């Protein structure tokens, strides 16, 4: 089994494609650093700037007619957070390595897309190149081959998340300095109150929840890869599902059945920051939903991969 896992990993990391994707991710982090640096206000001028922000937010919130619910919620949270910073004399514009890393964590969408590329390709590419016949006519059973491919996918997801995290902190430290590890991050919690959390703890929470979302989303791509046997199709459908799924849940959030859609549940951050997207949803419910989807998707992949005849390609 360990040998099969080595094989699957080699087939990922001996391809230049993988390294190009990671390089793109690092370039994207660099771009975020550059944008952040060029938009920083002058030192010392943050208080008047924040006061202006609060005033314009209040004006905006007075005329919310026609605005989507989510946008109003965002404005309200921003206002709460800005007021909190003013009251506790915290400079929200000052950027350091850790704070930058929290900003750069928004690139998780890009990291996820890259993970879906590998996950959507890992089974399908064997069919596309015909190597599936070589792979399945050795002594390893199909179940073991599929398991090794799935584990290699998750390991790649973990590695890509690490690339994002480590390079965010490293580039942040190089551009903004490494100080500020103890600084607090302010955020609006699930019940609408402003809270503080150590920036490192906040980062770990963000990344932890991203890993959960990554496992579930990569499993979708992996399942599509075994079903479609076409890399292009499974990657496209997986990325589209990932991008559209979240928006769809947002758009349909007034219906309560939406909570049974996988994408309403994949982001567990909602139970700690900002509050659940659909009223009545709980952390336990989301975990149960994810496990249910997870079992069905893996079961389906396994059943199809093991039972299907490998005929003319």
């Amino acid at each position, binding site marked *: 089994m360990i*040998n*099969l896992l*080595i*094989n699957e990993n*080699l*087939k990922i990391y*001996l*391809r*230049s494609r993988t390294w190009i994707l990671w390089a793109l991710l690092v370039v994207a982090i660099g771009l975020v650093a550059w944008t952040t640096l060029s938009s920083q206000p002058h030192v010392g001028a943050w208080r008047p700037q924040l006061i202006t922000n609060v005033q314009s937010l209040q004006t905006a919130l007075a005329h919310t007619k026609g605005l989507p619910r989510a946008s109003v919620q965002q404005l309200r949270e921003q206002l709460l957070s800005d007021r909190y910073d003013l009251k506790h004399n915290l400079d929200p514009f000052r950027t350091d390595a850790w704070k930058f890393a929290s900003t750069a964590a928004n690139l998780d969408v890009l990291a996820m897309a890259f993970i879906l590329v590998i996950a959507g390709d890992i089974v399908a590419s064997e069919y596309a*190149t*015909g*190597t599936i*016949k*070589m*792979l*399945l*006519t*050795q*002594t*390893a*059973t199909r179940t073991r081959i599929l398991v090794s491919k799935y584990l290699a996918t998750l390991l790649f997801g973990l590695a890509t998340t690490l690339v994002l995290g480590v390079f965010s902190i490293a580039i942040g430290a190089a551009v903004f300095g490494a100080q500020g590890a103890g600084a607090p991050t302010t955020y609006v919690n699930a019940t609408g109150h402003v809270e503080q959390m150590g920036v490192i703890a906040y980062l770990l929470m963000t990344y932890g929840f991203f890993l959960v979302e990554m496992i579930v989303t990569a499993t979708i791509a992996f399942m599509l890869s075994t079903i479609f046997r076409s890399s292009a199709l499974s990657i496209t459908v997986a990325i589209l599902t990932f991008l559209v799924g979240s928006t769809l849940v947002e758009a349909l959030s007034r219906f309560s059945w939406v909570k049974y859609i996988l994408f309403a549940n994949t982001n567990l951050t909602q139970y700690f920051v900002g509050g659940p997207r659909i009223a009545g949803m709980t952390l336990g419910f989301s975990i149960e939903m994810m496990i249910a989807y997870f079992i069905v998707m893996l079961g389906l992949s396994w059943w199809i991969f093991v*039972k299907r*005849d*490998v*005929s*003319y*390609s």
Partner: protein
Amino acid sequence: MALAPRVEIAHLTKRIGSKAIVDDLSFQIPAGEVFGLLGPNGAGKTTTIRMMVGLIAASSGTVEINGLDVVKHFEQAMQHVGAIVENPEMYGFLSGRQNLRHFARMCQGVTEARIEEVVQQVGLEARINDRVKTYSLGMRQRLGLAQALLRRPDVLLLDEPTNGLDPAGIRELRDYLRRLAQSEGLTVVVSSHLLSEMELMCDRVAIIQSGKLVDIQTMGEIAATADGVSEVSLDVDDASAANAVIAARFEGIEVKTRENELVLTLSREQIPELVAALVGAGAKVYGVRALKRSLEDQFLAMTGGRSVD
């Protein structure tokens, strides 16, 4: 005492919907034999080979390798099998050696020394560290063969192995397979729709049509045909004199004359009769040769000359 067969196929059937792609196929192959599956395109050869290596599940019937059922004991049975199904597709972004290491990791007991050995066996030493995407088809074929030989199989399965090879490559492969079968006692199963190929390569050939086994022919016996009629070539000193004798003795027989060689079709019993007549008439007979009817003629005769149906 008869040795247990290396490969035993019993009532193997593959149905898709109501159509039987492979229909109740049964045969056994002993050690050291080169066995051919011959049939027109779509006859079910590839499906049969794929069922033998577990790529396609049989609707009914069994395949045993060294007495091990390939479905029930896949891992143990496949330890004795090396296979190339259709084209030898390898990972193009890996080198030949990396490809072999990849497949070596998937089975038991293949050492680095063994990899070196098969690379030498197939004569790929010079290019083994190059990426496979730079290989020619002939080189890929060799690499595929190296892959199939890695775990010292007892049974080698090759599906259309000569596809895309040039005549020199085909000849080389044929000689190599024969050598493996003779010197190492390897059982080789090849499929092909090229009749002339099978004639040169195989000890026995199973003729398959529309998924059914039509006949199994031993290649040595191929000359003796079903109705006992064979083509005979005579080497004589004076063709026209000999022709006159034949015309007098066997009325209405057709004789093809080429310089001093006469070719005619006779029953087996008529051959000594003919020779006696010629010698009696004072003709000098330097040679009498029964011409082999090619498998192609027989194949066409047996399958009625149809290709796909």
